């Protein structure tokens, strides 16, 4: 059926062992191991987070999973939900972006990253962050979900862990920019390789987006959790969270777009449609991801109507790059399918490499993402939002965006990335094709269940199995959620097993990083597209315009601080002696000085050499 034969690795098996070992040898080993280690961390997060997700789905039909004396001592529904969110939405996505987009930057520039220290440091900080946050979560001290709305507070190690995870992404971004500068010195006036452009812009967007959560956590939540301040303004901290909280979905999504735009065409034997349009899409994400956050706060009492309206319009703008993406990707796929003999209106579709697990995972992710995008526009549509806000419709929506477009694409990428990093062929590729279909069917059933319930008023993030108010009409919705959850988990287990066996089973083969060329190449571009500094400043200005009035209004009318409280939450923050303020600020100062010294060292370090 497929005209792109799949042999378990991306190219024909290597003629001899020497070549087979040459996989990643284009780059230094000390830069490859942190990339592999980050990815491994993400896989562990996926495995654990996915299993907790299964328990949540099953709780709807079997509440006794949590409500029995044997398990309730160890695991609370909301503890599991917090773990599920943090492991999948933060750890899994961040570690993948760090790992994948470092490698793509290296590949695009054909040189190692500028700083090995930053690359390894990113992994070490990320792992340390997982340990710190994991400690608080596993010991029932951080049941605050990944949105961590104040005045609920968690143990300080949860916030420190989350901070380190974010810092690990900043190190990657800094490393990318330094490597870009080295490359530019040697290639004055040349258009940046598209793969590098997309990888770097994804992180630049996130640098701006993460300002909100950095201010929230460092400025308010950590001081509150150690008792330096006893009160915070919940409307303000919520707004800071959503400053980051919407753009974070694009930080999850853009690595998937890098694969869809720049790698998928190569994997199906075709080309990127348009170089310039791809760059424009990524720049639009850089400009409009952050100034849209208030559409998550349409129903907040403390945000003026005119600001909600303004963010409704910027949200509509951010739909444009995804609409363009739908066109560009489909046309790239169609061109590839036709070049392999596909005829007629739909004849190109069977020619897309449905036997290649990496391709089929991502094709199915794209299909379900169409539904994800449409439901996203529903959520963002101002008044329509009142029907679905905080209902089960929302988890229904994001399981067919981050749960497919992102998670399935990551799985699809891992089908070549792990063979590339290990030098082994993918273990049992056919299982991967089965997992892709199973996951897609599962997630669609799951999402159908959740959305159905949501439109009928079923709340999100609630232990529905234990909720006594639950009307009979929601039972079908719960059953679909559980069935879908089981199917997704089976697919996830197959995937994790495949990854594990690919690492363990020695079966040498060369896998190359698939990088596609463009039909309309970079030479035809307007050179202004590559001036990233200017786009970054423009993005910053847009954020100031969109959020300046918001914070100004909150400062004037934003309400008063509310005591942070925990006793009823079933866990306690770290009990600190009084006067911890100076200690914490000393700690911040030490970290800041260490960061500055490190930065100085990196900036003065040797430029990277071409591979």
């Amino acid at each position, binding site marked *: 059926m497929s005209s792109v034969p799949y042999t378990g690795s991306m190219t024909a098996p290597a003629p001899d062992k020497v070549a087979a070992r040459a996989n990643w040898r284009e780059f230094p080993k000390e830069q490859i191991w942190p990339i592999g280690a980050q990815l491994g961390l993400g896989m562990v997060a996926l495995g654990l987070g996915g299993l907790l997700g299964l328990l949540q789905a099953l709780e709807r039909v079997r509440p006794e999973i949590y409500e029995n004396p044997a398990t309730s001592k160890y695991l609370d529904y909301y503890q599991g939900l917090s773990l599920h969110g943090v492991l999948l939405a933060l750890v899994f996505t961040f570690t993948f972006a760090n790992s994948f987009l470092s490698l793509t930057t290296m590949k695009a520039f054909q040189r190692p990253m500028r700083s090995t220290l930053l690359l390894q440091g990113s992994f070490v900080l990320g792992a340390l962050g997982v340990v710190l946050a994991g400690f608080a979560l596993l010991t029932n001290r951080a049941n605050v979900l990944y949105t961590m709305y104040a005045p609920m507070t968690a143990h300080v190690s949860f916030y420190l862990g989350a901070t380190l995870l974010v810092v690990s992404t900043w190190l990657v971004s800094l490393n990318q920019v330094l490597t870009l500068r080295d490359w530019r010195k040697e290639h004055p006036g040349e258009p940046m390789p598209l793969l590098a452009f997309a990888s770097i812009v994804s992180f630049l967007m996130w640098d701006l987006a993460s300002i909100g959560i950095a201010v929230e956590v460092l400025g308010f939540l950590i001081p509150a959790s150690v008792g330096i301040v006893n009160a915070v303004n919940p409307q303000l901290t919520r707004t800071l969270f959503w400053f980051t909280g919407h753009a974070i979905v694009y930080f999850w999504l853009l690595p998937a777009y890098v694969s869809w735009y720049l790698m998928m065409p190569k994997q199906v034997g075709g080309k990127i449609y348009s170089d310039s349009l791809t760059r424009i899409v990524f720049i639009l994400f850089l400009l409009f991801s952050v100034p849209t956050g208030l559409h998550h706060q349409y129903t907040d009492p403390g945000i003026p*109507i005119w600001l909600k309206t303004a963010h409704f319009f910027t949200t509509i703008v951010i739909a444009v790059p995804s609409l363009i993406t739908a066109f560009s990707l489909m046309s790239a796929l169609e061109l590839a399918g036709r070049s392999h003999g596909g005829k007629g209106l739909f004849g190109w579709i069977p020619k897309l490499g449905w036997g290649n697990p990496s391709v089929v995972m991502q094709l199915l992710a794209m299909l379900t993402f169409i539904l994800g995008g449409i439901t996203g526009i529903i959520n963002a549509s101002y008044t329509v939002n009142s029907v679905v806000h905080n209902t089960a419709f929302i988890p229904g929506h994001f399981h067919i965006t981050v749960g497919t477009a992102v998670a399935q694409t990551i799985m699809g990428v891992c089908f070549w990335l792990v063979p590339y990093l290990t030098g082994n062929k993918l273990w049992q590729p056919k299982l991967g094709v089965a997992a892709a279909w199973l996951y897609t069917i599962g997630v669609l059933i799951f999402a159908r269940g959740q959305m159905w319930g949501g439109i009928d008023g079923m709340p999100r993030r609630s*232990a529905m199995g234990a909720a006594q108010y639950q*009307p009979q009409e929601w039972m079908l919705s719960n059953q679909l959620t559980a069935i879908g959850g089981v199917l997704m988990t089976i697919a996830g287990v197959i995937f994790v097993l495949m990854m594990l066996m690919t690492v363990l089973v020695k079966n040498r083969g060369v896998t190359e990083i698939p990088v596609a060329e463009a039909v309309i190449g970079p030479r035809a571009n307007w050179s202004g597209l590559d001036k990233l500094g200017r786009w970054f400043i423009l993005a910053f200005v847009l954020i100031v315009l969109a959020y300046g009035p918001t914070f100004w209004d909150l400062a004037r009318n934003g309400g008063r601080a509310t005591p942070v409280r925990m006793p009823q939450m079933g866990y306690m923050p770290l009990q600190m002696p009084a006067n911890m303020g100076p200690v914490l600020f000393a700690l911040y100062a030490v970290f800041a000085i260490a960061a500055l010294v490190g930065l100085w060292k990196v900036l003065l370090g040797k430029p990277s050499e071409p591979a």
Partner: protein
Amino acid sequence: MKIHAYERIYLALCAVLIVLGVIAVGMSVFARGVHLPAPHGTILAAEAVKTAPFDNLGLTEVAPGEYQMVMLGQMWQWNPLKGENPNGKDITIPAGSTVTFTITSSDVVHGFMVRGTNINAMVIPGQITEVTYTFDKPGEYLVICHEYCGRFHHKMWGKVIVS
């Protein structure tokens, strides 16, 4: 910069789609009168119970067929609604009544939703939430807390009975 003709057509269609969407949303606001929760003042959460109007929770008829319902979101009760709290009391109103809910929270963030209506608003400590709705159809309306507010979040609910 070269942009293919198909691409231009597609982009134009996208623009039309977006404009139509914005018009539809505009009509819901201006023609149908659907409004989002707007700021209604602030309050000191720790002293909400002692602050008017939250020192006198419950339903008052302010004019014929027009009611004000003052409520407090607390872990884990929509005070004074019943839900799973023996001291609470669900409210009963005649069909066609217009109710203005005035709510705040004395502890953490809660979410106020009435199933089968478009009542949907966050209840944030320090802020006063106000929502108005006309209950035309008789029946039992489920009031739910839809924002995670701690261990027994799913026990926070109540009922509005329209007779």
